[in-house]
């Protein structure tokens, strides 16, 4: 009788997908995501697009905060840098969108070296404050560098056309976001199961022990910053394209907090957690509104006309509830459900 899900070889342990049913369900999910843009209306599709962009950004932050344990309160700085890099290269200098995406990754990655350097000496709250300061500094730099960024006036961004494929339509743009989100997911999963990923986790769990094991803390911490900023920058470019207009105002500080909330709610250090957290946090206000609208039209109206205040309250409430009752996040809850399913009627 099978009593658990045991890994008998190293290959099994690091496999991305460990069973045929999971392959099957993953394929079904992928197919559903490909078809969804044709089936959903523009409003529902906007949620899917935002989720995919958020998943990409959250996976980027997960490398730094989830895998390596370095808290960043200023990731919106990388997001806005990526958006501006794309907008400047593509809209202002008329470069190819692929060059724009490359720039959207590379420019924040360079910027991350500036923030990453202090991280070699700072930890915890001190690092969080440093990253927070970075997000304010980058906004000021963007506003002052008018010759390049148009300052506070912002830059309009058109939907791209890549290799003859136009992403002008909402469905096509969602497919672009889906493609990038999937690539990012595979990239982060592969990083996690590689030597680099294990070094990140070792630093997060105990950096002194990691150093004793021969891990170069400086190099790996900087690498975590650069990788995280690169991915977040790409997400920023997608967000800028979605907004069609890049300005500092479009990237409020709240996005940094939202990103951390996603990781906490999803489950720190897990790529699946980042995905689940992004879905929950993006859909939470709308789902709540839908539930309340079933009971009362008045409550529905309150949600519609006071959506943003209620949204902030819901985020706070969900974070508190998760920290209190499910600190391992949605991934933890999922593991509990799976274990119960496998072991039932036994408890363990």
């Amino acid at each position, binding site marked *: 009788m099978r009593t658990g899900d045991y890994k008998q070889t190293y290959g099994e342990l690091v496999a991305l997908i460990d069973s045929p049913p999971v392959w099957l369900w993953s394929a079904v999910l992928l197919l559903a995501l490909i078809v969804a843009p044709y089936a959903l209306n523009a*409003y529902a599709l906007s949620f899917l697009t935002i989720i995919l962009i958020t998943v990409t950004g959250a996976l980027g932050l997960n490398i730094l905060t989830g895998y390596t344990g370095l808290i960043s309160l200023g990731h919106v700085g990388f997001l806005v840098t990526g958006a501006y890099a794309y907008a400047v290269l593509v809209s202002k200098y008329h470069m190819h969108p692929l060059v724009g995406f490359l720039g959207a990754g590379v420019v924040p990655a360079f910027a991350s070296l500036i923030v990453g350097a202090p991280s070699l000496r700072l930890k915890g709250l001190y690092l969080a404050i440093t990253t927070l300061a970075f997000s304010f500094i980058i906004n000021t730099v963007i506003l002052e560098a008018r010759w390049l960024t148009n300052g*506070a*006036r912002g830059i309009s961004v058109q939907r791209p056309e890549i290799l003859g494929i136009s992403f002008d339509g909402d469905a096509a743009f969602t497919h672009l976001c889906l493609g990038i989100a999937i690539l990012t997911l595979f990239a982060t999963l592969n990083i996690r199961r590689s030597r680099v990923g294990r070094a990140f986790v070792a630093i997060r769990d105990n950096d002194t022990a990691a150093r004793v094991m021969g891990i170069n803390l400086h190099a790996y911490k900087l690498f975590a910053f650069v990788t995280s900023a690169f991915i977040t920058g790409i997400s920023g470019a997608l967000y800028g394209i979605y*907004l069609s207009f890049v*300005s500092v105002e479009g990237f409020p500080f709240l996005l940094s907090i939202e990103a951390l909330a996603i990781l906490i709610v999803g489950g720190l250090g897990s790529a699946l957690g980042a995905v689940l957290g992004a879905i929950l946090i993006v859909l939470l206000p709308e789902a709540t509104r839908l539930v309340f609208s079933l009971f009362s039209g008045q409550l529905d109206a309150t949600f519609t006309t006071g*959506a*943003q205040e209620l949204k902030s309250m819901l985020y706070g409430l969900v974070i508190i509830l998760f920290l209190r009752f499910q600190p391992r996040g949605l991934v933890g809850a999922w593991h509990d459900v799976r274990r119960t399913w496998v072991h039932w009627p036994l408890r363990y």
Partner: protein
Amino acid sequence: MRTYLTTASLLLAATVFTAGNALAADPGITDTEVLIGDVEPLTGPPALLGVAASIGHKIAIAEANNAGGINGRKIKYVLEDDGYVTARTIQGAKKVIEVDKVFAMLGMSGSGQSIAVMPVLEKAGIPTVIDVAPVKFLWEPARKNVFVVGQSYEEGIIHLVNYLAEKNPGKKWGLITQDDDYGITVRDGFDSVVKAKKLNVVYSGNYKKGQQDFSSDMLQLKDSGAEVFLAGGIIAENIAMMKELEKLNLKPVTGIFWPGRIEPVLKLMGPAGDGIYAVDYVEPFASEAGKAFLDKARPLVSEAELKGINRYTMTGYAAAKVLIGAIERCGKQPTWACTISELEKTKNVETGVMAPISFGPGVRFSNQKLQIMRADAATLSFKPAN
């Protein structure tokens, strides 16, 4: 097999027939209702403008409904909060267009939000009248279905500075602006008059959005000896500046811009706000037209909404009047194409809250006439200045 084919043919025919019917009429119109959508900041600090504008829309809609609606159809107003978050403005616009299926749009949040939502509106082709934040990008280039009621920030500031320069020849000038798009526009407008009139600018400051303490800025203004001061803040910033000037016992001739020309601001400024000049394209509430508007609004809105009325209520009201008028002129079966065509034909439409509104072929901006007004701290109101 034949049965299957027959069933399939019937289903196909039914689908085509249904689709054909759906395509025949534009969304948002039923036998009894016309739906008008709007996305505004209803929460957070910018709610001061979003809520006020939505009240203006509600007044115009209530007025039309009380008069029997649009050719017998009652107007239903669908309002969505964006919290001044650009991504949410886009989603809100998509929701009211795609899910609520409105017939036309009003308002559209702040300037950055309006610019970002423009591709959504253009793509949908829905008739839209923007009234909250008139910025050039919204009408240059002209978009077929998007009309803007108001006046550009640049023109407004040029008008104010020209007026103050004529009234105060040879005086020293001071200016402080916010570090955003609004601030740049104010500065650009100011600079253009400075060049033309060769004004003597002795102080030029810039503050970070959200700044609350203006003690050092106002000390610098005092040291510069500025006699005419253009306060480029919006609400809290202008109040803080005027209070600081009061503390310093300084009373320069001060000008403010319309986003901050809101009566409650005068209450918070106290005596420091007395005599400040403002520019606007809507009537002050202390004027006859303003009083008439308040009388009209009183029975149409709740007590709480009445307290939320400010200049944005007037801009919202005017835009809604223009839109409702255009739909009405389309008769019993209004369509988007007809409404857009009628909006384009809008000529000298009187709303009672601003100069008559006109658009034209290829003209999507109403280019409202500006007027200067002056604050009276005793009555907490702005009155037309001579």
